[in-house]
């Protein structure tokens, strides 16, 4: 596999992200397995949802779009939960009430996520094309959503330094945010070359080598007690299937 400098850098970063992701999932599975005891999947649990707040900076990019999209989804959940719970309570207690109309942000969620024309989908389509660019992505967003109520071109939002092929504005529930298209395609591409996967599958890295790293003493103490993922330990309890709620 011959790569130029830029391709090698991207491949290296993809490998680092893959290793981090695999180890993170393994640690979570191992902790869940060791704290579950004899509990079944039907056991009660506590979920801690640590949510990043809405972000709007001078320069906003792919990370801000992901964060603000998550907040749109949680805002929708909050609205439905609060209003639905109150309405159910009033109905249960036979209290007369007037329906409250609230601003629905489903349109903004659709703008970002809905297939096949949501911003995230357009980003994927752009990334799949050979020699794709951030400029092509922004143009695609502009051409597709110029009449969408939750989309604005940068100039219309007072961001006169940007052209529609350089940035786009999303009208979130918490405010308008101008996203610069730079690096969107690169950040969205998490491709790991098959050669790397195969070589990592042959790795002989021992858990103690990184568990005993001096900067992670608590993990070093914990790790020898943990087991490998379920696939390597037929006698171990099945892995947690996502009952915990994290953020």
């Amino acid at each position, binding site marked *: 596999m011959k790569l130029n400098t830029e391709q090698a850098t991207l491949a290296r970063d993809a490998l680092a992200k893959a290793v981090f992701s695999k180890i993170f999932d393994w640690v979570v599975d191992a902790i869940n397995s060791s704290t579950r*005891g004899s509990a079944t999947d039907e056991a*009660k649990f506590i979920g801690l949802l640590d949510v990043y707040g809405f972000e709007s900076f001078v320069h906003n990019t792919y990370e801000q779009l992901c964060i603000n999209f998550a907040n749109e989804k949680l805002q929708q959940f909050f609205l439905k939960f609060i209003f639905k719970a109150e309405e159910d309570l009033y109905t249960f207690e036979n209290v007369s009430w007037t329906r409250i109309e609230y601003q629905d942000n489903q349109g903004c969620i659709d703008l970002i996520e809905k297939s096949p024309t949501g911003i995230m989908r357009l980003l994927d389509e752009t990334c799949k094309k050979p020699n794709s660019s951030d400029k092509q992505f922004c143009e695609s967003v502009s051409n597709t959503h110029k009449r969408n109520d939750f989309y604005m071109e940068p100039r219309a939002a007072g961001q006169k330094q940007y052209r529609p092929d350089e940035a786009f504005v999303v009208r979130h529930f918490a405010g308008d945010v101008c996203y610069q298209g730079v690096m969107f395609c690169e950040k969205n591409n998490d491709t790991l070359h098959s050669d790397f996967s195969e070589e990592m599958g042959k790795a002989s890295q021992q858990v103690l080598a990184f568990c005993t790293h001096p900067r992670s003493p608590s993990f070093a103490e914990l790790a020898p007690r943990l087991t490998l993922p379920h696939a390597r330990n037929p006698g171990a309890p099945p892995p947690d299937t996502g009952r915990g709620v994290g953020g």
Partner: protein
Amino acid sequence: MKALPDSALASARFVTLHSSPLPERHLSPSRRVVQVLAALFSDTAAKSSGKKGNTFNSVSRRFINDLNALMEDLNSTKVGDTAPGPDGAPRVPIYTCTRELDTLT
């Protein structure tokens, strides 16, 4: 006797589980030396075996899938506040961090 909220019951169980010793097989010395990375990538390597080259892997797609899974969890979960005891402190003395205690009370 007034029933404890679900969260308090779950908390009490968590303490019990947390203090329980791990089964012997978890502590076996042979388990201490394991090929972690090889195991972690074994499924990926098996899938890619025989296939050469790159297949586009979207961060956005994974983010959306993870987020929608979280929303499904939230929608199927009883969400409520942690009720403090009569003296303003949690009934189960787990929370020792001052900031968390302030939040809960």
